Every structure is written in C-alpha cells, then in structure tokens.
C-alpha cells in the first residue's frame, strides 16, 4: 500500500513540475529550458514504449531507434511532397512504424537471448544504411522540414503549445502502457517473461503476445520519431544510429525497468547528464561511458526503484 502511494506521489510530482515549468522558465528568462524539456519528453515517450517490451516483456531490443527513424522519415517524406497535415503525418508515422516493427518482430521475436539482441541491432542498422543510400531524401545529409506538422486548434510553432501537447502525449503514452500492462494481454506478456515454460504449460504461447507488444512499442516509438522530427525540423539517418538505440535503452534502465515512471526519470537523468557533461568538456563521453558501466553494476533498480517496486 505504501509503495502504491509513493508511486502516486512520484507521478504527482512529475506532473506538477512539468505543468508549471514553462511559466517558471519564462519568468526567470530561461525560455530555452522549455526546448530542453520538450526533447526530454519526446525521448521519454520512446523510453516508455521500449519499457513495454523490455521492462514488462523481457525482450532486449537493441533497435528501438528504428521506429524513431521510421516515424521521423514518415513526417519528413510527407512534408517533402507537400502534405503538412499533422493528423495525416502522425497517423502514417505510427502506422509505418507498427508495420516495420511487425516485420522485424516476425523474424526476431522467435529467437531469444543473444540472437534477439543481435538481430534487432542488425535490422536497425539496415534501416540506417537504407536512409543513407536514398539520395532522393537527402541521403547522409538528411531532410529538412519546411514547417512543423499543421494541427487543428494547436500551433506547434509556438514553443509552449508544443510543450503542453508533448506533456499530454507523454502522460497518455504512460497511461496506455499502464493499461496494457495490467490487462489480460499484459498479464500474459509478463507471465512469459517471468517463466516461459510455465506460461506455455498453462496454454499461453508467448509468440503472439510478444509480437503484438513489439508492434505496439514500435508504433509508440514511431510517434516519438514524428515528434522529434517536429522538434528538430530535421530528419537524418542519425535518428536510427545504433547509439540512439543504446541511449533509449539506458533511459529505460536508468529510470528503473518495469516501473511506470522509470522511463520518464531515465530520459531526464540521461539527457540532463549528457547536457551537463558536454558543457564541461568536449570529451564528455569518456566520462559518461564508465558512469554507465558503474550504473549497470551497482544501480540496478534505477531511479524509480527508489520510490516504487517494479510491477512485473
């Protein structure tokens, strides 16, 4: 019961802080923090989606950047052909990412362990090279968005409106994941993670559940990609670089795997750490790398683990 309250307290704090942040930042003349936090919330959505399959499904996907790229390119390519309607762009981004995830998942979810890690990584690299080799959409240099997605009622060119839309989408993604995980479907998914043999014995073949979760996570990752494209107004193959996949994975882990608030805290922690280190030295990765190793060795429960127990 106490853990239950602490989870609410944690979410309440996150929501209140994020709600008042734009007003506070503007009042203090530090408007650029709105931009920084927008980026954090986009990666939080990506980490939330990875947490669904990694934290609750036990699928160690080292290829989540693939959906970030698919979603980003869906927006950029539609904009390239003059379609700026946000609803259409985002629907295509989500749909295309779900299909890509379904295709990658159909091959990879049958395998497990080291194979699964290597295969998801390899397919993401394939998409990365595909992005580089298509000259029509900028190849290596990427493709610039002429304008942000055009939505009814909202104007994404306004930094604060975009901010609150992202906040709503991030909370929506976390809530959706929470509902999925606590549904019958989510129970079957978690059962397969904790004991595959028993789960089979009581009549659940894990494959369809895992594949469906993989596709849902891909779709959510695609949304994050579409949002990231709007944030940076620029889509390059770097969206799908393998280090991106590693970063998203670290966000899910640093925050605390299999916890609802973990990915949000993880995205905040990793991006803030990267920012702070990079302001200090150009060679910040030489510090970040060992820090990450240490966090894996000694900080397994993650940030949210300080507040709440994993649901799985």
């Amino acid at each position: 019961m106490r853990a239950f309250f602490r989870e609410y307290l944690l979410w309440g704090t996150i929501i209140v802080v994020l709600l008042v942040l734009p007003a506070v930042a503007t009042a203090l003349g530090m408007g650029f923090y709105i931009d920084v936090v927008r980026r954090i919330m986009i990666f939080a959505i990506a980490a939330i989606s990875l947490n669904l399959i990694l934290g609750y499904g036990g699928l160690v996907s080292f290829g989540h950047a693939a959906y970030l790229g698919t979603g980003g390119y869906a927006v950029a390519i539609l904009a390239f052909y003059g379609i700026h309607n946000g609803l259409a762009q985002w629907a295509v981004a989500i749909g295309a990412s779900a299909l890509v995830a379904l295709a990658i998942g159909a091959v990879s979810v049958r395998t497990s362990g080291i194979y699964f890690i290597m295969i998801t990584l390899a397919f993401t690299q394939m998409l990365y090279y595909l992005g580089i080799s298509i000259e029509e959409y900028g190849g290596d240099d990427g493709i610039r968005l002429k304008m942000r997605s055009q939505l009814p009622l909202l104007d994404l060119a306004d930094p604060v409106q975009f901010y609150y839309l992202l906040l709503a989408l991030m909370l929506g993604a976390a809530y959706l994941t929470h509902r999925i995980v606590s549904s019958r479907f989510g129970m079957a998914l978690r059962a397969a993670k904790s004991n595959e043999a028993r789960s089979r014995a009581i009549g659940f073949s894990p494959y369809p559940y895992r594949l469906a979760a993989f596709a849902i996570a891909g779709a959510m990752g695609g949304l994050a990609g579409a949002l990231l494209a709007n944030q940076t107004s620029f889509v390059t193959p770097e969206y799908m670089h393998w280090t991106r996949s590693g970063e998203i994975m670290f966000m899910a882990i640093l925050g605390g795997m299999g916890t609802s608030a973990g990915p949000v805290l993880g995205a905040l922690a990793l991006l803030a750490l990267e920012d702070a280190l990079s302001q200090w030295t150009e060679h910040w990765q030489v510090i970040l790398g060992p820090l990450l190793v240490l966090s894996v060795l000694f900080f397994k429960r993650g940030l949210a683990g300080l507040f709440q127990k994993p649901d799985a």
Partner: protein
Amino acid sequence: MTFTLIFEQLLNGVQLGVMLFLLAAGLTLVLGIMNVVNLAHGSLYMIGAYLAITAAQWSDSYLVGVAAGLAGTLLVGMLIELVALRALYRRDHLDQVLATFGLILFFNELVAMLWGRAALFASLPAYLQGHLELPGGASYPLYRAVIIAVGLAVAALLWYVVTRTRLGMLIRAGASNRAMVAALGVNIRLLYTVVFGFGAALAGLAGLMAGQIYTVQPGMGELILIQVFVVIVIGGIGSIRGALVGALIVGIVDTLGRAFLKPLLATVLSSAAANTAGPALASMLIYLLMALVLALRPAGLFPARG
C-alpha cells in the same frame, strides 16, 4: 562486365569475408563459451588499427606496428575481461549489453582524445605494394592477397587449436558445460581470460590490417561489428566453422551486391530507378540474407553442439 572484373570483385569479397571472420571468430568463442555479449569487441579492432599505425610511424617499420597492434589488443582485451566483464558473467544479457555499450563510448572518445577525430591513413611498406599477376591476364593488389592468406592461415590454425589440442578441448568442454569443467579442476577463470585475450588479439589483427584499406577513425569498430553480428547469426553462435562460412558468404554477397546490383537492375528497370534502388538494395542485402537464414535455419547454418 568481364570475367576478370567479376573475379576481382569475388576476391575483394573473400578479403572482406576474411576480415569479418577474424572478428567473428573471437566474438563467437566468447559468446559460445562464456555466454557473454561483448559489444566492445569492435573497439579492440579500432585499437589494433590505431596502435599499429602509431607504432609503425614511430619505428618506421610495418612489422613493429603489427607486433604492437597484436600485443596491445591482447593486453587491452585481458584488461577489459579482468576489470569489467568478470563482474558481468553472472548478469543477464541486458546488463552485458549496457555495460559494454558504456565501454564503447569510453574507448571511442578516448581514441578521439588521443588521436583526434579526423581519419588516419596508413602507408604500406614497399614490399607489400604492387600487384599479383593472376592467370588470365588479371592482376590483384598484393596487400589484399596477403590479407586473404593471413585470414585463411588463422582459420586453419584455429581449427587445429580447437579440435586437436588440449586448450581446444577445454574450450569445447567449457562451451558445453562450464560447471562440470570447473568441477574437474580446470581454472575456468584463467581459461576465460586467455580465450578473451586471444579473441581480442584476432580483432586487433583484423584492425591492424584494415588500416591500409579502410578509413581509420573513432567508431570504425561498430560499423564492422554489426556486420559481424550478421555473420554470427548466419553461422551459428559458438561455431568457428559457422563463423568462417558465414563471414565468406556475407563478405562476398555484400561486395558483389555493391559492385553489380546497380548495373544488373539497370537491365530490367529504367536507369533512374536502378540508380535509386541499386545502392539501397545493395546496402540491405546482407540483412535480408540474415532474415532468410533465420526463417529457414533459426539456429544458424552450423549450430554449435552442446
């Protein structure tokens, strides 16, 4: 499209395959025996290249560079095993992936600090320059031919060590049941360190030979490492034979695809379409091949017994 051109590209494919094999052999042993995912294997390839170039420039001798690359990666490999990986054997694959990802960031940035981010270029000694005359009037760069010869020699040596020596017997036994091997009085920790060190030196060997034909820069290791993963998935984890066959298949398919797919497509499609589809398809070819192998043989072409 003459036969000499096809033959030359075929040799280039074998040469790439041999490089991939050197990396895959060490990695597949580590995966098979220790059940550890080591993403930092590509870093050892990069370190081998940098050490060899620096030592060769400093001493003005290619062979000193080779020795420095081999010895350096052997040492760095054993150091990584002692400091980081030992703590990870009991952890799950996720922790291993994350920790070795951290190692990659560290090594790439360390190399950028010491040598800069710009690409380095290595020179060849006079006795490795020039071309070999092939039957049929074709010629092939001597250095690439040497790489093929070295790679095949290492493959033969590995086959001998693994199947015919006591060390190889321990390696195979460790792969199938490590607890039993430890119970029989073998120092399995030492065995792990030795195997890891030699795997690292093989990656270093690939790296030091790569310096003269590919660009040497921070991050070079990961580009090839992901291809090596494809090799291992195709060949089967833990199998040296699988690594060799997989590496040659991947090397040849990738090279021939890049060389001939565009002109081949141009015979069926319009040249504009072929110009777009050719390179795109060529860069995806080995991954599609991997998907095909997985669909037909989920455990790879030569699954290790055990």
